[in-house]
């Protein structure tokens, strides 16, 4: 049984039924009881003990129902390659960390920026799932920019906790706040880049089609058409 995880868009919460361990103890106790009444040098006694023990275990499964536990895991889907799976898995982990630090940071502006980074990062990872060939282009983002952002945010959170904020602390916090604006912009840019190839392909297709339509006099004025497209 699964349901959508409200926290991390890349993960889902799965309800796992964990069987109780008590039947094992009951089976053991049943065996001990069996040994107390049977002569334990006969094969038949061992078989009978096994039956008694199995019965004890079975009664245990009836008495102690499995425990239902919610487990957070990556959504079950087919990934195009191991690299994509690893990127999504790592991304999901960093999203969890971002949410954790988001919870701790009190500054509203920084909070909003983290939220934006979370959304765009999730979108980047979802795009990667659909366009596995682009996985290479987010490597630097995943391996350097996002971890460094997390590091800066953790430092910001620690500085925020300080009761007396001296000049150095305030300066550091200001620097991080300014940097966060740049990171948000870079994050959008990173997502945009994933569509760069596709945008170029579309543009080329349109140019070719425009030329062909004009050469066959199917359109009156090539320039006016261009104007329509490029308004």
């Amino acid at each position, binding site marked *: 049984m699964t349901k959508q995880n409200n926290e991390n868009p890349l993960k889902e919460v799965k309800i796992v039924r964990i069987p109780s361990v*008590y039947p094992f*103890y009951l089976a053991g106790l049943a*065996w*001990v009881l069996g*040994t*107390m009444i049977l002569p334990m*040098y006969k*094969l038949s006694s*061992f078989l009978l003990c096994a039956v008694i023990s199995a019965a004890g275990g079975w009664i245990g499964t009836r008495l102690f129902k499995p425990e239902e536990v919610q487990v957070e895991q990556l959504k079950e889907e087919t990934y195009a390659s191991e690299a994509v799976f690893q990127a999504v898995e790592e991304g999901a982990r960093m999203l969890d960390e971002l949410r954790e630090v988001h919870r701790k940071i009190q500054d509203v502006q920084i909070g909003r920026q983290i939220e934006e980074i979370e959304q765009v990062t999730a979108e980047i990872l979802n795009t990667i799932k659909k366009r596995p060939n682009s996985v290479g282009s987010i490597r630097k983002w995943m391996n350097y920019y996002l971890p460094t952002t997390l590091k800066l945010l953790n430092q910001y959170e620690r500085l925020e906790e300080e009761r007396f904020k001296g000049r150095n602390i305030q300066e550091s916090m200001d620097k991080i706040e300014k940097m966060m604006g740049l990171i948000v912009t870079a994050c959008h840019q990173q997502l945009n880049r994933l569509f760069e190839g596709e945008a170029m392909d579309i543009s080329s297709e349109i140019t070719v089609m425009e030329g062909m339509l004009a050469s066959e006099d199917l359109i009156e004025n090539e320039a006016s058409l261009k104007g329509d497209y490029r308004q």
Partner: protein
Amino acid sequence: MNRLLKKKTTAILSLIVMIVGSTGIKAGIDLNRLVEQTEKIFVAEEEGFSIQSKLMSKMEFSNELANKFAIHFLDSDCAEIQAVNKAVVQLQMAEGAKEKYQASQQLDQADFQLIGLLEDQTMDDEDQKELNRFYANLQNCNDQISHSIYNEKVEELLQELEQFPAKQLVQLFQIELPQRYQ
């Protein structure tokens, strides 16, 4: 503690420990009790006599024969009397059914050699009767020993303990099995 008990590994390990532990302890107790019960027959049988009691009687008769009766006709240092005394001591010292059987055989040999020698001596009718009585008593002891159910019970036990898993458990616990009286 509760968290540890709730772990599957702990539960499985506990199950194994309970199975192995209780089986080991109970198998050891059961096998020792079985051996003990059989060995008890050597000392006390249900019918009231046992090999041990007959061996005691044999030792008493032999002692009486050598040290009370024979010395009237033979020199107390004579080899036959000494052989009987030595065999009696050996039987007293013997441990285990097998060793007792061998000591008893030696005592029989020494007794009958002494009786043979005494038969060659001149004695009146009373003494002759007494000698015959010794002979009859010793024979009677051997006869009763031969009818003991001890060997039969030992045989039954050994056959049972030859089967799986009793044989392996006996080896594992190094249980000393009762010996046949032969």
